[in-house]
């Protein structure tokens, strides 16, 4: 070992989505915002944009909570700080989930608006999903004999049975 100093970690842009819950049931959510910002500051991340994305019902219960407040932030941080940030988020009692994605660059407001609108347009313009069951065969297919039995017979040596 030569004892050379390791090169500092590369700084790159990230997108973070933090799902928090209003633990103290306060009317204002400023304390939650400050909490999330505090987590980012702890790992020396430079916050570029920080917004409250939504407040909505969760699709399933997380830590016994049915509702969550979503904070979306774009920040720049050294690559080795992300593991710390994830750990801090897990230890935090207010943060239910934290999704951190690496980006190539931080998108501008216009780009974000355009992206979401173009996805919606694509769905509108795109051909409608075919009928009830779509191309997959429209609902339930009658299965002769039922179950997986009709698959068998053709296989030579390869059987579905275990």
């Amino acid at each position, binding site marked *: 070992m030569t004892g050379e100093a390791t090169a500092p970690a590369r700084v790159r842009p990230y997108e973070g989505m933090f799902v928090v819950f209003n633990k103290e049931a306060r009317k204002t959510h400023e304390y939650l915002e400050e909490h999330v910002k505090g987590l980012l500051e702890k790992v020396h991340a430079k916050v570029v944009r920080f917004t409250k*994305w939504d407040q909505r019902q969760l699709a399933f219960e997380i830590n016994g909570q049915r509702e969550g407040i979503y904070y979306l932030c774009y920040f720049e941080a050294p690559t080795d700080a992300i593991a710390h940030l994830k750990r801090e988020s897990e230890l935090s009692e207010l943060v239910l989930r934290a*999704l951190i994605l690496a980006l190539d660059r931080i998108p501008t407001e216009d780009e974000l608006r*355009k*992206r979401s609108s*173009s996805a919606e347009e694509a769905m509108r313009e795109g051909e409608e999903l075919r009928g009830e069951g779509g191309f997959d065969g429209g609902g339930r297919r009658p299965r002769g004999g039922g179950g997986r039995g009709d698959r068998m017979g053709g296989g030579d040596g390869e059987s579905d049975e275990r």
Partner: protein
Amino acid sequence: MPKKKSRIALARARQRRYKKFVDRGPCRFCKKEGLVIEYKDVSTLERLCSQQGKLFSRKRSGNCAKHQRQLKTAVKQARYVGLLPFVG
């Protein structure tokens, strides 16, 4: 007694059925340049998932392989943050 279809008619019918899957043009997302499917587009993702919360097949949604992959990742990320259910 119903008239029996000729062999040629049956073959054409089979061809038509096959064409339905093949000649469908570009996928809906390919038509939009620079489009990125994100986990935040919950309405888009919901429309491409079944009631059980399972992603529709390419055959059904008509997506190309590239966008189906993007969609898959987006659905998984949306599930993680509680925007979509794991089981419907």
